């Protein structure tokens, strides 16, 4: 039996283990080593320079600026995405299961849709939505008489990052809404019935029943969004036209900076160091979020 068991286990596990080790684990491990060298990719020898790449990066204003933008996104994206998604989810599940809004399934399908769309399409589409002369946004603003608000959203250093952040929020609200709805619907309706009998209003029900009982889901979502805020590569790359001149530079995030270090400047050591820094930040953030949001968990 023992021998028979391993005749299944080994061949079934091997393909996954080999692919994962070769294309995921090995590159991750090697990135740490490359980040300690000044390798330019042309020669076989990789001069070891210790933490030089990291030191240079932390002195590089352009990198610090890029990281600062990630930090700003880390505040803005979770706040708005979770806020709006919670609002919609509670509208759909008011007072517990079953009491839906008219057309609920239509709205769910619609709101979720941007999440499944390619970020490239979304990015290109919004480049034209934001276009100064014939874009949708300025057109709407002119139509309702708010001409003073119109501007070149992606050409203005003050608005470019937030215009891109708005797109990120727009496309992920539906996804978190669906997750929150599922979480809210798993709360037994008897809790709400008891609360109504005790005279609790809608807000009190939300604050004292819904929120504590779906806390685990909100924590998980926070980590997902934090990881997304540290990435943002595709949207920023596409919506700045891949360039980093003029206003576009004002939306450069760490991932875009890394891409240009690697694939336009061939500074492989420095680029790998950015990757390591992003990993460390991801891990620290996850731990911090788990710590800060720790509450008593309720079993039901």
């Amino acid at each position, binding site marked *: 039996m023992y021998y028979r068991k391993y005749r*299944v286990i080994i061949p079934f596990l091997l393909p996954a283990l080999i*692919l994962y080790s070769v294309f995921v684990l090995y590159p991750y491990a090697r990135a740490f080593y490359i980040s300690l060298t000044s390798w330019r990719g042309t020669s076989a020898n990789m001069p070891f320079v210790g933490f030089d790449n990291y030191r240079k990066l932390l002195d590089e204003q352009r990198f610090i600026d890029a990281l600062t933008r990630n930090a700003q996104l880390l505040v803005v994206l979770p706040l708005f995405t979770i806020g709006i998604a919670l609002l919609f989810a509670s509208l759909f599940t008011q007072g517990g299961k079953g009491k839906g809004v008219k057309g609920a399934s239509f709205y769910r399908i619609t709101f*979720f849709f941007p999440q499944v769309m390619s970020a490239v399409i979304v990015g290109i589409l919004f480049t034209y939505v934001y276009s100064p002369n014939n874009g949708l946004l300025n057109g709407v603003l002119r139509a309702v008489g708010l001409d003073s608000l119109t501007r070149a959203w992606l050409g203005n250093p003050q608005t470019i990052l937030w215009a891109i952040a708005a797109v990120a929020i727009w496309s992920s609200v539906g996804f978190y809404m669906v997750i929150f709805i599922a979480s809210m619907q798993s709360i037994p309706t008897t809790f709400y019935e008891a609360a109504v009998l005790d005279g609790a209003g809608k807000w009190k029900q939300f604050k004292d029943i819904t929120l504590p009982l779906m806390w685990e889901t909100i924590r998980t979502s926070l980590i997902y969004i934090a990881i997304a805020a540290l990435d943002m590569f595709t949207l920023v790359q596409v919506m700045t036209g891949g360039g980093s001149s003029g206003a576009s530079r004002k939306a450069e995030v760490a*991932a875009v900076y890394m891409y240009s270090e690697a694939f336009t400047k061939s500074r492989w050591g420095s680029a790998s160091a950015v990757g390591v820094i992003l990993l460390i930040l991801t891990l620290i953030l996850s731990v911090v979020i788990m710590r800060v949001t720790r509450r008593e968990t309720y079993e039901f």
Partner: protein
Amino acid sequence: MSVNTIPALTPDADPIDAGGNHGRLEVVSSETTGDRILGVFTQLLLVFWAVLVIFPFVWMIFTSLKTNSEILFSPWDLPASPNWVNFSNAWNNAHIGRYVMNSLIVIAMSLTGTLLVSAMAAYVIARFEFPGNKVIFYVFMAGLMFPVFLGLVPLYFLMGDLGIKDTYHGLALVYIAYSLPFTIFFLVGFFKTLPGEVAEAAIVDGANQYQVFFQIMLPMAKPGLIAMGIFNFLGQWNQYLLPLVLMQDESKRVLSQGLGMLAIQQGYQNDYGALFAAMTITMVPTLVVYIIFQKRLESGLTAGALKG
């Protein structure tokens, strides 16, 4: 008692409480007006967001049917007559047709591979006891936390060293590898919920473990495999970063990547109609898959997120 009975809780229907808890009764009756206001507010908000989501896509489709001068000078009007030539321009001159084929070739390999390799690994992890079982599972799970950017530079050189940079099967292998963590995570959970009696009975009847897996467990896991098939189809169809780095041969670009390049070039060539047609062509498969499989996709994704 279901929630639907709550609004019927009027003073005379509630004899138990006759001994004066008037505050509560007022709250209950005033809630009907409150509910109505909330209802109107709710509907307005939902319609607003639905318009916000749908309008840009509708605008995109209409724009894809306009001539260049219509796009530039009357962005708000409907196309005078559908300018279908945009689509043939996008398909032929802008090479979208080739990019679609490239994407289909890569995904045919990577999707089959992802499902087969993940299902085999997940089945063993979920249903067999062996030393290192847990460790292997957590090593795969660690992949969910690590940013792709970390491995990007070594991966680029590794593909060159292996001689599979700029090849369809090379990109497909990388897609499979990066799809494993979530797919295995999901399928392990799925295989654990399947009953074991049928498999045991089959073994008693003399079936070997391979027959048990391919003829019994795999068909039983079909709903989970479909959910992961859709999830990975969308993820791999939309993938941008990996092909951008690993498929630099222009004739082998996949769809999202080609579209991104096209958007940058279009700034110089000024054929906006073709660009919008290319976006519409890219969107259609996603839209179709999404509408057909929306329920399964939703349950698959929420299952992952809620457990995660």
